[in-house]
């Protein structure tokens, strides 16, 4: 999926959440959106999921201007908020099958792949539990199992590394993201942890005061962080390196 953002603007009252934001997302890659609290990362993800709309500028998927009511486009992407939304009264199994049905996906021919995902996320023992009883980390794991069932072309994840998941869950997220990317999908996630973003992404996009401050490949940023011990803070504060 070719994702293009041009001159995106979004204000909430007098607060500018995003301002003249341009981004061309390289296909089949993992992109980390990095920024301080309130930089506009989550607003950008919500906009890409169609929940909020830009005041100005364009967001296009495969050169088509996106709005949430276009189901052919909407079914190609999936959004996991910082607290994954599940049907609280349904069991985990019912939740996953409901998500798959809503995205028009079935499990035929994907049993092995999906079993791996269940094993990796540790969701298998939770299958008969009601989603409303799960802890935050467990809900994230179920959210990841839903992603595995859906197999979206674009995965938008809000703060997966601050999700309350244990190391197994975060490992499952990484493997799932890489598997999606391997299949030609794009994964965009937000984080405030620069080191984590550099370690696990192909590109890092730094957002500062609602503007794109930098888009760099992880390899060069990794080099910078090795050279500069305070590099992560510098990046967040806007003292950007010349790469």
């Amino acid at each position, binding site marked *: 999926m070719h994702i293009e953002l041009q001159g995106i603007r979004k204000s909430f009252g007098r607060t500018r959440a995003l301002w003249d934001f341009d981004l061309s997302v390289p296909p089949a890659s993992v992109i980390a959106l990095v920024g301080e609290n309130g930089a506009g990362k989550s607003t950008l993800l919500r906009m890409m999921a169609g929940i909020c709309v830009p005041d100005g500028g364009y967001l296009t998927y495969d050169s088509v201007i996106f*709005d949430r009511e276009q189901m052919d486009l909407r079914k190609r992407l999936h959004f996991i908020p910082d607290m994954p939304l599940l049907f609280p009264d349904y069991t985990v199994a019912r939740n996953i099958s409901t998500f798959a049905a809503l995205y028009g996906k079935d499990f035929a021919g994907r049993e092995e792949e999906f079993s791996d995902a269940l094993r990796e996320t540790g969701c298998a023992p939770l299958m008969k539990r009601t989603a409303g009883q799960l802890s935050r980390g467990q809900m994230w794991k179920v959210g990841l199992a839903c992603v595995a069932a859906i197999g979206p072309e674009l995965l938008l994840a809000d703060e997966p590394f601050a999700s309350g998941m244990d190391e197994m869950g975060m490992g499952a997220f990484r493997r799932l993201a890489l598997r999606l990317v391997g299949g030609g999908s794009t994964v965009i996630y937000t984080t405030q942890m620069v080191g984590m973003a550099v370690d696990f992404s192909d590109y890092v996009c730094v957002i500062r005061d609602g503007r794109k401050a930098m888009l760099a490949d992880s390899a060069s940023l990794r080099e910078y962080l090795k050279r500069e011990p305070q590099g992560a803070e510098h990046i967040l504060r806007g003292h950007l390196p010349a790469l």
Partner: protein
Amino acid sequence: MKLHDPDTEKELIRIARRLAGPTGFQKPGFAFWIDLIWRALAFAPLIWLAAMAIAATYGNDSLIILSQAICAILLMALVRVGMGQVAMSFKTACFFGTLANLPITGRTALTLIRGIILRRFWLPAMLGSLPIAIYLHNPGDPGRFPEFLATLGLLAAIVWATLGIIQFPLVHRLRLVKIWHWVAYILIAYFVVMYLFGARLVTPSASREAMESLIDRIMWIFPPVWVFPGKIGNGGLIPAVSWIALGFWNWLRWPASAFPNYDRPYDILGAFGDAGKSRDEMIEPEESTPLEQTIILSDPPTRPPSNGWVERLIAASIPAADLATAGAFMPETKHTSRANQTMFFAAVWLLVLGFGKTPNPGEQYRDLVVFVTWAVPSFVFIIGLLSILNPLKDALRPCPVGNTPVPFFTTLPIPLRSLLRLTFRITIVRTVIAVAIATPFFCILAKIHQLPEVGAGIVAMIPAIGAAWIFSVPALISNRLDPHLRRRKGIFPLILATSLAQVPIGFLWIIGSIAGIGLSFTWGMGGTAGQYAFLLLPAAIACLVLGGIMSRLLFETLHLSLRQRRYDWKSKIR
């Protein structure tokens, strides 16, 4: 008991007052008093209805016994309200950690909760007892004023004590609350039948007297009755005083007795009927094994519920493209059992009215009887058959995304149009069933009451109301979406236009309804009156159709605005 130091609080307020500036503190508002007035008003019609019902059927001798029974039932309903408050306060403290998060002992926390419960309940207890005491005595008579005051105090105390005694595990095991409820339900059912048919159902006065004597004895099961006039001097005093003492003693030891449940909230809530599952089930749900993977893989895709004939009809009417959405958001409500129960009720109502003698309670109460005979089934049909609430309300459940709640369905690939289609189909099926049941029912009812012109009118009116209900669905959905949308700048004219569009829709419905009612009556009258039907029929149809078109236009405008990215999804309700 207070956790804080009042002097510190005063000092804090003194400092804050200095800092608050010339405008001072914000005013607390009238919410508390408005709530209080609302509660008091809610009670008034109940008592009035009960009194009217008794007066309509019985002579003065029976009135005393039956009115007392109804007063007792009302007071026991007040106890039920109090039980809900106890459960809610306990839930707040235990579940949400309000008090558990403070460095205080569990017993101190429960003492605080008890204080909150009692403070919240004393006013409803007094307010509920006041009209009953007024009804039982005549405070306007100076000679009876002390009796009135004593009854008021005793009633409030006994209601309060009952709430305290219910907390006893023994009372819970004896199922005393259930016994009270069932006795109350049976008595109410008896009163309704008596009210409708009066002396004609139980003709021999001896049988009636025996029945009244039985009710008089049964009433002793309700504690408030012990302090009613005529009872307190006939053996009611000792049980009443003992009950009040026991209740207050139980309130005193409540923190200690409730403490073992402080970290086990499900146990105590079970006593109030709030817990569907046992604690063990909730805390240690059945663990599944990795084998469950195969269960999910072999699970069919989610389908709308199809456990009854109404559900099957609804499922059959839903287009294939919307089945998954219906499966996700159509709650497993008991459409079929509701429809069956309503049909059963209709049959019983007709049988009773058909085989019983025509109600003739006297001229002065005739209107009331006719009103009840028609209003009760209308109410039952509306509640049992029509989808008053949005059948897909879960789709609009606000869910937090970051700090911003959004309707659940917006995070999923579900188009708004799909929600409209589903709501539309569900409404159509349920309305058609409602019309199919209600039309013959009311026609038969009109026949029993020998009102042929009304019967003829019903044939036209009920389907018209059904059609109007179906046509209004798009406007209702647009209206329901309103709290979930945040308008962007520059669309004020559009908002104004759509808001104003609702006014003509309302007018069209009203004009159409008036024309429809007029049409139905002229149709029934026949003769010269029938000629007006030629004017009224097109008027009614035109209003109905125009209203439907405008309702749909309203939705389409909203949908187009969404497509043009004029709104953000943001629920106002968290």
